[in-house]
């Protein structure tokens, strides 16, 4: 049915009800999304303690941030974690998706089990990892000690180990990547894979020339999701290292929350703005790299 350009009498009669229905959603959007985003955008350039009116200070917050060692560490960590997330983490998820698609025995059970870390609270997961990495009774060190009895590392409290420990808490849990890629693989008619195999393509060739290009969109989306998730990672750090030792595992949300506690709201929103901009840059960059808006080739 093709609608005429102008609203019919019936449609005009419904308008008050229609706007009444959309009003609550619109209110939530205005109060909890639009106003906060505009507030961040404006007050990132001010000195503001929440009591006195914000005072415009240009880029001073940003200059101060870049002068702080903790902030530079946060940026360094975000770059490293982002890079690991967009490569190794995505690769793990993609490999699992391809293996599941090849119908290994028990693949449904594996998919079900792989979901579990994602349905429980990130706070609980961080606590669990605190025990897993405990030097005395922890799961990991006792496992290592069964081979090397002298092994002793206080994961969350020692210098290079803490960064690795935080990375472990999310690195292998790529079920979102797996679900995205698996959905794309399953959307293709099975005959296509069979035809290629009959034509003499090897398993590797089918993967390289048919399967991978077909899930380009899913992989691109997965790269964006995995990368941006690193920007707002909070529980895994706040409940374990709190950014330490030193600034080894510092990140932007920890600094943001600290600034709010210190009543430096302008500073907090400067950090928020930086997170926002990094997110947008990542999105645009990955979309270009994966040609996400183009039709499948």
């Amino acid at each position, binding site marked *: 049915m093709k609608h005429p350009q102008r609203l019919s009498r019936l449609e005009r009669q419904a308008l008050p009800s229609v706007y009444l229905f959309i009003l*609550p959603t619109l209110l939530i959007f205005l109060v909890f999304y639009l106003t906060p985003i505009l507030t961040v955008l404006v007050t990132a350039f001010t000195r503001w303690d929440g009591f006195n009116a914000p005072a415009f200070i240009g880029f001073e917050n940003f200059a101060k941030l870049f002068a702080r060692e903790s902030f530079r560490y946060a940026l360094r960590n975000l770059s490293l974690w982002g890079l690991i997330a967009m490569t190794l983490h995505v690769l793990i998820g993609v490999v699992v998706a391809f293996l599941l698609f090849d119908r290994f025995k028990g693949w449904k059970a594996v998919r079900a089990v792989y979901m579990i870390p994602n349905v429980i609270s990130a706070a609980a997961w961080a606590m669990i990892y605190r025990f897993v990495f405990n030097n005395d009774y922890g799961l990991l060190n006792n496992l290592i000690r069964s081979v090397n009895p002298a092994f002793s590392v206080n994961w969350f409290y020692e210098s290079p180990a803490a960064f690795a420990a935080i990375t472990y808490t999310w690195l292998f849990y790529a079920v979102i990547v797996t679900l995205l890629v698996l959905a794309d693989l399953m959307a293709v008619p099975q005959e296509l894979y069979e035809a290629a195999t009959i034509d003499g393509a090897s398993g590797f060739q089918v993967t390289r020339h048919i399967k991978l290009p077909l899930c380009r969109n899913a992989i691109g989306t997965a790269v964006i999701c995995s990368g941006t998730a690193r920007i707002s990672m909070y529980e895994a750090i706040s409940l374990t290292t709190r950014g330490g030792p030193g600034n080894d595992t510092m990140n932007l949300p920890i600094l943001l929350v600290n600034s709010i506690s210190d009543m430096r709201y302008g500073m907090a929103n400067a950090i928020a703005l930086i997170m926002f901009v990094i997110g947008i840059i990542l999105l645009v960059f990955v979309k270009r790299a994966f040609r996400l808006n183009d039709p499948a080739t």
Partner: protein
Amino acid sequence: MIKTRNAGYYVYRTFGYAFLLFIVAVSVFPLLWVILSSFKSNGAILSSPFSLPDTFGFDAYASVLRQYDLLHYFVNSLVVSIVPTFGSLLIYAMGAYVIAKYRFPGKNLFYALFTLTLLVPGHTRTQPIFSIIMNLSLYDTKTGLMLVYLSGGLAMSMFILRATFLSVPYELNEAATIDGAGFLRTFMTVILPLSKTGLSTAGVMMFLGNWNEYFYAALLTSSPANRTLPVALSFFNQAFSYDYTRMFAALTIVVLPGILLYVFAQEQVTASVASSGIKG
């Protein structure tokens, strides 16, 4: 179809099984270890971390629920998860419904704005939301937290619910109107009952998000009276220093509801986890 099984095939199968085994191990071992340890004595946890418990007694569970008041935090979590879930489900369903089914000036703009919120990284709105709750004098209240949770999941709910309402035939609206049903009645008695799948997916997504939420719960509440389970977790170390059995019992109580929900609503939870990635 005849498959040639060369050496490469077997290498691939072996590698595949090994890799999947590793994935299963990292996904369940930490959790299984925590749950099993909650039945062991403190001494056994320290001296033999991999041994199985001798008996399955629930003393530690009874003790944390009563002494540490975990039951109270459990109820708090339930309240701040369920109330906003139903509230926002109704609100977003109303919004998504008119966007899916009606033409009106501003419709495309609204839809674009609502779904674009997906691009805002988590935690960037923290300070303004903190101030809103402070200014409403709702700091350290369940109401304040519920208000924030009400606003969660706007974009994903719009995606899911609009698609759901679009799949309900438009003729049903016309038929209901001809039968004399008003706008509200058509929505409540004709459209909503036909949209259970989408509503349950969005509902499970929001409930799970609220149940597991830690960031705002830690930021916006301070007193034990308004504490939720994930926040209570962070106080465990003070509460039971070196009492690992009870710590593990409490941890099990916190993670179990999410897992149970997953067991009983696998499809919806899978959809919601898939979307939570896109949300992040």
